[in-house]
């Protein structure tokens, strides 16, 4: 039960009133059945004895009124409990996403982490299930103890028989718990596949390919195979667990029958009054019912416990380490210079290999970006360009070698301070589905200051985004995408990339980095984004990656990457003269655009 206990302790901190309420409800659930055991005995005693009307009325009133009082108490507690359950899940979600936020990119991109995130979702359901079980489980325990104490006071033999039979139930409970775990393990992957095929029906991203290639038969065959496999696992599980569940239930029933026979015998022998017979019979029924409930709920709790494992494992994942020292005078000097606009980046003999990779992506990569210069990074697919950018962003740490900002190893700089120096956009940039100004300033609207607005305005102006923004119904308060707001807008790729660029500029860092910012754009938009971007980059230290070599000519210097290191560097002219990879790639592209003939006519 260790995962369950861990999460319950956490849950207790999200809403302190929650678990006490559940405990109170459990006590109620344990006490309610007792009403129906104790008062009928008192009524029977009275009916067969003195038949005093006032006492009879009292017992009837207590039996009926007690039920009412318990029901009211339960309803009242329930109101608070339900709200508490909502708050608890809010708390859990919040804890989970702050955890996600503290993971390094490397950890969060791992396949194992992605799996954990996916399985954690079931873990949340399991916690929900557990919280639902707690009340009846506690009730059953209390009820078991109470009916047991009645039985002890009444008949030792009875207790002996019942307890012995209860012990018999333990092996089958164990067996059930094992079956449950085994089933969960075996069906996890299959259920994921099943979810995939279920979603195929509503996911039309595959629709065109499947229609044109006749892939329906393939899809159908895989779906059928998966479902047949699930059915086989299910068949085995339900057959076995049905047998053991049936056996446990039958044992409980046997207890009732035996208890009943014994009590009846003693009633006939005159050892018991009718009232005591009713009381003990009721207690025995209750004892058995509670026992049966305990077995069932216990099995469910055990299954829920197992499903919470990924959640707990996720919460324990190692978090991003920050070895930066803000008090280091060299760090302070480097940062102060960077904030004043002086950014000089240097990479020395960088080596890097992805944990899952077979060969190092970076193999002794060295480079130097002088302050105020714009550099282009080019190379073939897979040469390591994007990896280098990720290292510069400190998403990963190099295996060997170091990166220097104004002469200081960036690992010595606190992460947050280092990031404040960067202004980055990627081809796969993501904007939040919130207001445009919130996206650009990275703050909630209420927190955006006049200074932020001025910075945003300047970035918007420099990127020639103002006209588009003014056309929107609610200007900069318009939401990006319709996920949170029905009147949100979905700008074209070029406009969206400009919003992301505005965010980068507004962020205020002196080092501009762009990884293929225009790959998804059409030529006109590409041209425009490059033009405004380079204007904005003036005076900043900048590094950009592009497959369109025409744009690299704008750079002060070009770095050509090949097999994880900088193979060539220099100006466009120098590199063209070198006849290396750059010249080859450039000529290949240019050949499409520079036919022999129309040279002169092309100028506007």
């Amino acid at each position, binding site marked *: 039960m260790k995962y369950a206990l861990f999460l319950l302790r956490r849950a207790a901190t999200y809403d302190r009133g929650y678990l006490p309420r559940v405990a109170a409800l459990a006590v109620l659930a344990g006490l309610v059945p007792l009403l129906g055991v104790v008062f009928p005995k008192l009524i*029977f005693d009275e*009916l067969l004895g003195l*038949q005093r009307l006032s006492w*009879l009325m009292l017992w009837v009133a207590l039996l*009926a009124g007690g*039920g*009412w009082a318990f029901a009211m108490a339960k*309803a009242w507690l329930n109101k608070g409990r339900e*709200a508490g359950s*909502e708050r608890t899940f809010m708390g859990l979600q919040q804890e989970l996403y702050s955890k*996600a936020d503290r993971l390094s*990119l490397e950890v969060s*991109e791992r396949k194992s982490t992605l799996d954990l995130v996916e399985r954690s979702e079931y873990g949340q359901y399991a916690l929900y299930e557990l919280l639902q079980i707690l009340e009846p489980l506690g009730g059953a325990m209390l009820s078991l103890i109470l009916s047991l104490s009645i039985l002890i006071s009444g008949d030792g033999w009875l207790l002996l028989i019942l307890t012995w039979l209860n012990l018999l139930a333990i092996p089958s409970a164990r067996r059930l718990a094992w079956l449950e775990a085994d089933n969960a393990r075996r069906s996890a992957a299959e259920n994921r596949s099943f979810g*995939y*095929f*279920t979603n195929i*029906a*509503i996911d*039309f*991203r*595959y629709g*065109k390919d*499947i*229609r*044109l*290639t*006749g*892939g329906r*038969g*393939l899809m159908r065959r895989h779906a059928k195979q998966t479902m047949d496999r699930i059915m086989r696992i*299910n068949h085995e599980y*339900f057959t076995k667990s*049905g*047998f053991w569940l*049936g*056996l446990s*239930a*039958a044992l409980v*029933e046997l207890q009732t*029958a035996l208890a009943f026979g014994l009590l*009846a015998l003693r009633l006939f022998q005159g050892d018991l009054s009718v009232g005591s017979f009713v009381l003990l019979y009721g207690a025995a029924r209750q004892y058995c019912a509670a026992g049966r409930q305990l077995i069932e709920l216990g099995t469910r709790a055990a299954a829920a416990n197992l499903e919470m494992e990924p959640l707990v494992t996720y919460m324990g994942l190692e978090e991003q380490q920050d070895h930066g020292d803000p008090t280091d005078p060299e760090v302070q000097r480097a940062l102060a210079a960077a904030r004043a606009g002086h950014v000089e980046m240097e990479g020395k003999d960088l080596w890097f290999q992805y944990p899952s990779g077979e060969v190092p992506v970076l193999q002794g990569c060295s480079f130097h970006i002088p302050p105020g210069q714009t550099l282009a990074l080019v190379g*073939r*697919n897979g040469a390591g360009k994007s990896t280098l950018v*990720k290292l510069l*962003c400190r998403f990963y740490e190099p295996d060997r070698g170091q990166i220097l900002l104004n002469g200081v190893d960036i690992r010595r700089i606190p992460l947050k301070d280092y990031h404040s120096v960067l202004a980055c956009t990627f081809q796969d940039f*993501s904007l939040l589905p919130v207001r445009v100004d*919130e996206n650009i300033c*990275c*703050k*909630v609207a209420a927190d955006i200051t006049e200074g932020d607005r001025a910075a945003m305005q300047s970035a918007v102006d420099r990127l020639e985004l103002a006209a588009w923004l003014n056309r929107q119904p609610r200007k900069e308060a318009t939401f990006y995408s319709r996920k949170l707001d029905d009147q949100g807008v979905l700008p074209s790729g070029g406009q969206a990339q400009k919003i992301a660029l505005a965010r980068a500029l507004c962020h205020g860092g002196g080092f501009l980095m762009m990884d293929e910012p225009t*790959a998804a754009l059409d*030529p006109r938009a590409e*041209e425009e984004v490059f033009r405004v971007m380079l204007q904005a980059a003036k005076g900043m230290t900048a590094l950009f990656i592009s497959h369109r070599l025409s744009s690299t000519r704008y750079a002060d210097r070009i770095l050509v990457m090949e097999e994880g290191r900088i193979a060539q560097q220099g100006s466009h002219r120098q590199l063209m003269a070198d006849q290396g990879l750059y010249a080859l*790639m*450039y000529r290949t592209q240019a050949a*499409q*655009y520079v*036919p022999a003939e*129309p040279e002169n*006519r092309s100028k506007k």
Partner: protein
Amino acid sequence: MKAVLYLLRKIRRYDPVMLPIMALFTLLWAVYPFIWVVVPSRILALYAQGAQEKLLPLMLWSGALAVGSVFVTTFLRGNYRMRMNKVRYQLIQDLMDYSLSMPYENTLHESALNDIRLARDAVGNPTQGAGGVILTMLELAGGLLSAVGFLGLLRSLPWWMLGAIVVLMGLGFVLSQRRSTLLMQSWEQNNPTYRKKDAIVAYVTDPAARKDNILYHLSGLIRAYFLRLSRDALALYQAVLRRLFGLDAVVALLNLVRDGLLYGYLVAQFLKGRLALSDFYLYMTGVLSFVMIAQQAMTNIATIHRESKRFACFMRLDIKGAERPLNAGRTPDSVPQLLEVQDLRFRYPGTDRDVIDRLNLTIRPGEKVALVGENGSGKSTLIHLLCRLYRPTAGHILWQGRDIWDMPEEDWRQMLSVVFQDAMLLPFSLEENVAMEAQPQQSAVDWAVEQSGLKQVADSLPRGLHTSLLRTLDDDGVDLSGGQRQQLFLARALYKQSARLLILDEPTAALDALAERALYESYAGLCQGRSSLFVSHRLASTAFCDRVLLMENGRIVEEGSHDALLLLGGRYAQLYNIQAKNYRAGPMGEVRG
């Protein structure tokens, strides 16, 4: 009722064993509740008579019946649930089949998409829709039988007493239904808020968004939204909880009245000597059992009613469940034919503009044609129309003079090989991804893989062509890079040897300069024996085509060879120069401006 009958038919078809299971379960389920109400009362009666010799047989029979029926019902319930899932999986497969063979243009209608989503919800969850109806059905008949039986048992109670019990129970039931309706409504009301919350939280765990998230410290912004949305949802829920408390209080009061009446009456009758002790016991426990069983039965009816409504979304789609033929009836043409597009118009539903506007074009047999134009000019829509994925608003697409809408769908489809810009990998083996058939033809796969250059990729993988792609279904699956994906989609297009028209939509967007050129160079070979249409916004990539079509605002505005269009000096030349000017020699400083 219609849903119940429909599902019973499906049960008979997919797993008829469920029917005898239901019958046996019903019998035992109906009998069981009586055992421990009737037997104690019988014992008290025997005790009053002093008939001890009848005790043992009574105990043996009742004990055996109770133990046996509990074992059997518990076992059957699990087994029935498993079989219910089997039926449900079949329905899901039927739905999948329906969705995959539904006219693609239906996806343009939000209502059609929504219908399918609702149908999925109607079969996707074991306790809702089909699953809910089938599961609840099991207990219903037994419960109803029990309830009737108990009424018979209690028949000697005075009519006003029975009447009061039934009325109070009915009221309690109505209130409990009101309770669940309120809860459902509050969930529905809160649903958009939850969806928004999920949408914003997804940005934290989504690895694609992590980079921006780390660099720009977006967590504060996300938290603010999360808290705001959570608070909204909670406030709404709390208001509902207050109303639920009111309902619960009324229900508790009704029960108080019922119990007070019953116990008071029983005690009074006993004191007057009109009631035997055994009957006193029988009525006291019998009434409570009756109320519980009857309420459960009513709840089950309400559940079946509710889930039937949900399931109606599935029935509405008119899913046949019969497998439609997968193969075309006609042998494909052995050579490419003339393709003509005449006055084609297309307008997306709910819009007021023709995206394709009286468009005409011709592709001669075996010709290589390039289709260029800016984003939004209608290129993708035209491809959808050529593929018969959308039905034209007006105009014709003719193949060898015959309208493609006049031939069977599969006949036209087998004539086409298409690589869409947003083509997808399937999480199956590499080979299956190429062939897209359950039984790939080995020689054709080998040829396609060789031609497209995918062979090197396959050779580098541990299980070659049998390696699974993606990790959706197989933990050992591999992902492909952008360039490798392009090669795979090409191989997919080549595998389809019946195709006489090849359509490639932006195949080079993700490729580097050298890979791009390699594709262009192999293009002529790929087009062997086929007409082809190459769509791109990179104008230069069209130089190797026989003819270039420039599209703008849903029409072909310029047409001719690359060189001829440049000489013309129109739109094509203008767009071309935007892309070309940076490749031309010129003083560096000037360009940088």
